[in-house]
């Protein structure tokens, strides 16, 4: 009954029209970034540039100080990767233990993590900042990695724990009978089975940390060692209505994540929908 009919073709064409309308902002983003200064206010906002100009991009890539995008890119990669590793290591072990335990405290721990997902971050931000400064964690990539790991750990544990609830214990039982120790079972049997949950955690946490602005703005505190969103923020802060320059750095900042998404879009979308079913 679900065959490709004329009506389906109509639906397909309609959805393409909708998609193009939906993505119109990207059209303005690219055309405006390519406009030279003298075209910015003389041509219509709807028109493409008459003589496309890449100088805005060169300005962005050669900016120095706290809006240095190359430094920002490197810092963002280090901080995102470090946080993901921390979240996988701690999240998988903790999620495993609390979902496999039948003791009463494990249920309590589960709710501890669940409520932590909902708490708004601003309430703890100032005490957290003072604590981090006392421990010497502000202004460094290490501090941010610890912070992001702690902030997103409840979400990571929640995703892992839900994954285990739908998983039988046969493999672990078999490995126990074969004489494997508890840590061997975890690293050789359980961890490989968690791959879908690990994928979801990587994508969720990676996206949140990569795009986060507020935390790195506060905890890196004005140094020249910034993440990409903060570098973008400082760069744009010095521009007023220079939309061609603003959009050049917006494009530069979104190219890495957009390229990664288009390259691995299937895994991205699976990660999103798969992690949220439980």
């Amino acid at each position, binding site marked *: 009954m679900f065959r490709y009919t004329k009506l389906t073709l109509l639906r397909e064409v309609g959805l393409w029209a909708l998609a193009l309308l939906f993505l119109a902002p990207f059209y303005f983003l690219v055309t405006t970034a390519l406009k030279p200064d003298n075209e910015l*206010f003389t041509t219509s906002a*709807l028109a493409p540039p008459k003589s496309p100009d890449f100088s805005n991009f060169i300005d962005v890539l050669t900016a120095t100080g706290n809006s240095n995008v190359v430094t920002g890119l490197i810092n963002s990669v280090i901080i995102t990767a470090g946080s993901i590793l921390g979240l996988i290591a701690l999240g998988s072990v*903790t999620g495993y233990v609390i979902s496999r*335990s039948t003791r009463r405290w494990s249920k309590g721990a589960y709710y501890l993590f669940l409520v*932590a997902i909902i708490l708004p971050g601003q309430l703890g931000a100032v005490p957290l900042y003072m604590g981090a400064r006392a421990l010497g964690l502000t202004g460094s990539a290490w501090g941010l990695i610890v912070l992001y790991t702690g902030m997103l750990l409840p979400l990571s544990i929640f995703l892992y724990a839900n994954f285990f609830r*739908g998983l039988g214990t046969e493999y672990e039982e078999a490995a126990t009978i074969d004489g494997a120790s508890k840590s061997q079972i975890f690293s050789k049997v359980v961890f490989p089975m968690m791959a879908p949950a690990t994928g979801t955690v990587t994508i969720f946490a990676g996206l949140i940390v990569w795009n986060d602005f507020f935390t790195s703005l506060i905890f890196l505190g004005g140094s020249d060692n910034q993440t990409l969103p903060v570098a973008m923020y400082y760069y744009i802060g010095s521009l007023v209505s220079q939309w061609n320059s603003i959009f050049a750095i917006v494009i530069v900042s979104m190219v890495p*994540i957009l390229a990664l*998404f288009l390259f691995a879009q299937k895994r991205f*979308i699976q990660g999103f929908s798969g992690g949220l079913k439980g």
Partner: protein
Amino acid sequence: MTATMQPESEAAEAPRRGGRTPVAGQKTRPRGRGLEFGHWWWALPGIALVFAIHYVATGIGGFFAFTNWTGIGAFKITGWANFEAIFKDPTKLGALSNTLFLAFGSVLLGNIAGLLIALGLNRVLKTRYILRTLFFMPVVLSPLATAYIWKYIFDFDGPLNAFLTAIGAGDQTKPWLADPQWAIWTVLVVLVWSSTGFAMVIFMAGLAGVPAEVEEAAAIDGANLWQRFRNVTLPAIRPAVAIATTLGIVQGLRVFDPIMALTAGGPAGATETLATQVYKQAFALGNFGGGAALALVLAAIILIFAVIQQRLTRSNPED
């Protein structure tokens, strides 16, 4: 997915289990013998970190909600004074109603749009995966970058006004973000734009769990399109609806980044939300006690709506 003719119970269950065999781990596990797998102390580092970063920090912040602390120096305990001030201040009450408007508006519109697109993409379309990728693209962008793009679109010299002029509606042009009446709608558009793709993939995953045979059977029995959606599809995607709306409301209630980049709460407080007010009070205006009290109110609201939402949309109370 297991094909089944009982969409009410089984098909609703299928997407939750993600296609794995629904052997509930809890039932096969021997009860009452304590921990079978792993050592309990493996959970300690994770619990300690979450406890320190979420609960201790929030607890200290919550304590300051009952003080007149400015962020540095000495303070006095003032009891409920900060909370009384919130409910007397029209800016805060305006922020509260804006927060609720944006959270519910974006969840409602984003989910309806996401559901319609997901239904449109659901079966036999040749380019459904390309279209899905395109609709999902805004979700991976940073809220900051998204806000800058839309700030230009709504700019007085921007594309929206240029378009209105081009189609002969030049008298409708206005500085959208600076117009007290329209500014909040521009924020809503941006929120919906960046969340539609997210709702769409959740619904697509839910719809994939509805077996084609059930829909066919309903169609053969003479059910029209709406009846098929109402009685077959919707019950089966209830878990997807629950997840998408709960997350959307929690996210919507604490919305901060896009507003700061778009309007910074202006013009004249027209787009102020609880989160932007918390930030301004605590970090910019040196009223940490007041900001903390407002954050506590926000936390309570989020908690209440998250619980209500879970209760309303939960399909299986035992889960």
